């Protein structure tokens, strides 16, 4: 409405101006001498009358800025010329009658009243609406101009000035452009201001009332709080997923922030004579001495989730060195909790897991995917391979079917092999079935291999019962499985020249007399290739070191029964559940045993005794009997300084080793060559021994 009214007002103003202009033209034509008498400007305009067209265009371009004084007559008269060019005679006739009537009152009015231009417009408004019907053409030409709404008011001003200018002196014309619009605007602004003021006053009044009542004292500072939430609203907010997520995230952040505070950055040593506690070398749970020291860093245990469960698998995140996962068996005393559990712990957040993942069956092994840091692969007692995503909720995002294709027996071992762009999950169940899965398709395995016992002598069971498998770093088509009968079998995923897929019939690694619990290939990330070294642990109280024949070279073994003896034998004092090579030190490995010891070995230093050993501190409320046994050990793969153990009591313990056992600084090439030499020597001795026997 406002706009419309304004338009109308503008139109009216313009009409009036044009009329006046026409009147001027009439007057200038009829009495040029008078114009000259009135002002010099007028004279200038009259003298240039022949150049009107040029000036007209010039003015059109400069409308807003033009000095109206000089151009006024120009604009006025050529406007009349151009527009009226065709119907000049008619118009002039028609106009003249009008103009004369108007022009007559104008000259007398102008000298007396330069001040009330706004009055003039209002007066024009009335006249326009009454008079113009007679010159229809006129209206037509203006209506054309009306269509550009913005431009309407602006050109109106200079022309309006022009009408004044020829009677006013220059100072008046200069003033008028600023005055006229400003007055209008000022009115509007004034209105707005008034409104705002009223609103503010109302608010202030309200605020004062509040203060007086003492209801909402905080209202003085900004508009806070907007209001109290009702109980229903509170409930709604508290139950919303958003809120739960937020609280989950934010409390994690705060807990991490608190745990980070090992060192107070604001400490002022000058200010206080307080003794700065030196981290005592012997405080806490440590084992070993000097550069072979092992120190317990932290123990992870969640009262709700870890209780009465056993740790069945541990793995460090390949991307985030502070994250590690542990898989758990079921809690027999809590039938309503999910049986299977994987917790991802953060070394910087001790009291609770970063993520909790669940499954309907005991999880027997779990691993981070080395190629997708968000994905975790697990194997369950029910024979399912499960996939969790740290971006998703606790339930697995994918799982293999329980029946039909795939495994029907517990999966104690999974691995992810291949490259960044082409990798497979390899799972192995105790009935000897090894499956290869694509990360995307869990409905059925991409490949399925049944391992059969190759021994010639008739055995009661034909199946191999694999307990664990391990792939060499370099070859994703060849792997070793440790079996319940104590042998370690080399296996091929695919048919090769001279060997079918499955267990290699020519060779087996015989040495253990009880089920093999772990097989681990040397990580072989160094100047000398040690990738053919394998350590295995077994329930026969020993760890053995093997040198694995390259899969292609197997056929060269002629007569023999194909049984290969271990290179070295490390006899322990209890069953050994797990043994793992250090990812950085070529001669270091760690083992955990049934007595609850974590032992660190450096076979370049000592082959009879561990260089250091440590037992995780017992939980206060834990059982004392038979609760110490450790099931699994895992190294942090990038730095090799930390390792974690877990076992029957369900607590995951993180240790840090000193420079002699881990860490990349101080790594020397000699370490690798020494290891190689040692292995070669032992190999030779072993061969001699075999000859003697």
């Amino acid at each position, binding site marked *: 409405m406002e706009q419309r009214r304004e338009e109308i007002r503008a139109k009216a103003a313009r009409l009036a101006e044009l009329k006046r202009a026409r009147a001027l033209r009439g007057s200038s034509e009829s009495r040029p001498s008078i114009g000259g008498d009135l002002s010099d400007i007028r004279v200038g305009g009259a003298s240039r009358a022949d150049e009107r067209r040029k000036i007209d265009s010039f003015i059109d371009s400069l409308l807003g800025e033009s000095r109206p004084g000089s151009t006024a007559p120009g604009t006025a008269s050529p406007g009349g010329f151009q527009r009226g060019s065709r119907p000049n005679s008619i118009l002039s006739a028609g106009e003249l009658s009008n103009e004369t009537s108007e022009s007559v009152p104008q000259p007398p009015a102008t000298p007396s009243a330069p001040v009330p231009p706004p009055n003039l417009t209002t007066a024009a408004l009335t006249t326009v609406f009454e008079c113009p019907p007679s010159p229809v053409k006129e209206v037509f030409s203006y209506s054309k101009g009306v269509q550009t709404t913005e431009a309407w008011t602006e050109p109106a001003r200079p022309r309006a000035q022009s009408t004044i200018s020829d009677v006013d002196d220059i100072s008046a014309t200069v003033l008028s452009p600023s005055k006229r619009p400003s007055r209008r605007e000022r009115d509007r602004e004034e209105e707005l201001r008034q409104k705002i003021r009223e609103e503010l006053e109302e608010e202030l009044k309200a605020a004062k009332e509040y203060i007086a009542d003492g209801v909402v004292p905080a209202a003085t500072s900004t508009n806070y709080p907007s209001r109290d939430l009702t109980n229903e609203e509170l409930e709604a907010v508290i*139950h919303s997923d958003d809120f739960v997520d937020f609280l989950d995230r934010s*409390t994690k952040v705060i807990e991490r922030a608190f745990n980070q505070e090992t060192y*107070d950055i604001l400490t002022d040593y000058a200010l206080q004579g307080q003794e700065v506690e030196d981290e005592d070398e012997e405080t806490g749970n440590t084992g070993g001495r000097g550069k072979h020291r092992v120190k317990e860093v932290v123990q992870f245990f969640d009262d709700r989730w870890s209780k009465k469960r056993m740790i069945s698998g541990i793995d460090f995140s390949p991307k985030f060195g502070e994250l590690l996962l542990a898989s758990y068996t079921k809690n027999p005393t809590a039938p309503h909790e999910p049986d299977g559990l994987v917790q991802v712990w953060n070394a910087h957040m001790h009291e609770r897991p970063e993520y909790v993942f669940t499954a309907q069956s005991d999880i027997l092994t779990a691993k981070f995917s080395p190629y997708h840091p968000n994905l975790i692969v697990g194997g369950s007692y029910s024979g399912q391979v499960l996939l969790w995503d740290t971006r998703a909720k606790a339930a697995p995002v994918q799982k293999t079917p329980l029946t039909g294709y795939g495994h029907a027996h517990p999966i104690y071992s999974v691995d992810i092999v291949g490259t960044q762009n082409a990798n497979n999950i390899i799972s192995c169940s105790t009935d000897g079935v090894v499956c290869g899965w694509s990360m995307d398709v869990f409905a059925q395995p991409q490949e399925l291999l049944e391992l059969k016992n190759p021994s010639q002598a008739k055995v009661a069971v034909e199946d191999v019962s694999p307990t664990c498998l391990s792939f060499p770093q370099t070859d994703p088509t060849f792997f070793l499985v440790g079996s319940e009968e104590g042998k370690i079998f080399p296996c091929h995923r695919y048919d090769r020249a001279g060997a079918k897929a499955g267990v290699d019939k020519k060779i087996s690694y015989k040495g253990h007399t009880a089920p093999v619990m772990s097989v681990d290939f040397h990580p072989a990330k160094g100047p000398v290739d040690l990738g053919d070294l394998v350590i295995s642990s077994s329930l026969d109280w020993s760890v053995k070191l093997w040198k694995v024949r390259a899969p292609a070279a197997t056929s060269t073994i002629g007569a023999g029964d194909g049984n290969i003896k271990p290179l070295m034998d490390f006899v322990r004092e209890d069953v050994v559940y797990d043994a793992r090579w250090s990812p950085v030190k070529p001669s270091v490995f760690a083992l955990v045993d049934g007595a609850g010891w974590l032992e660190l070995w450096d076979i370049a230093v000592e082959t009879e005794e561990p260089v250091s050993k440590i037992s995780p501190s017992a939980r206060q409320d834990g059982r004392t009997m038979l609760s110490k046994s450790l099931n699994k050990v895992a190294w942090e793969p990038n730095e090799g300084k930390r390792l974690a153990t877990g076992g029957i009591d369900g607590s995951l313990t993180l240790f840090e080793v000193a420079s002699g056992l881990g860490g990349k600084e101080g790594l020397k090439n000699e370490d690798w060559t020494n290891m190689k030499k040692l292995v070669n020597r032992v190999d030779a001795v072993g061969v001699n021994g075999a000859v003697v026997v």
Partner: protein
Amino acid sequence: MADKSAANGQEALEEKLDRLSRKPGVKASIVLDRTTGSIIKTSGDLSALQNAKSRTESATASFSNEANVAEESQSRGLEEFAALIWNYVNSSGQLVQELDGEDELKLLRLRTKKQEIVIVPDSKYLLTVVHDTPPA
């Protein structure tokens, strides 16, 4: 399953805040709505969530043995505290916005001589925890 998980969620919520407040040094925590500043949840020692003046006020109120008055002044103190925090977060957020329009405020840790206030702002809510710092 759904209602069970909802119940669990509720429990887990309580548990998370409880766990926070049980941590050594933690005095109290409060959850506010980011847009309006309304108080959604508090836990821990509420007197830590007041400025010193209103703390003494509520203390004197409690001396006067009028439970009503004490409670009221405490809730008023709480609201004042929430207002302070809210304004603080907003002005900090504004600072960040003006430094770089695409940036976002993620964490505020305010160390004082007596305590530390840790604020985790989010698009919808903000969590504030007040805790003691080791003497520095």
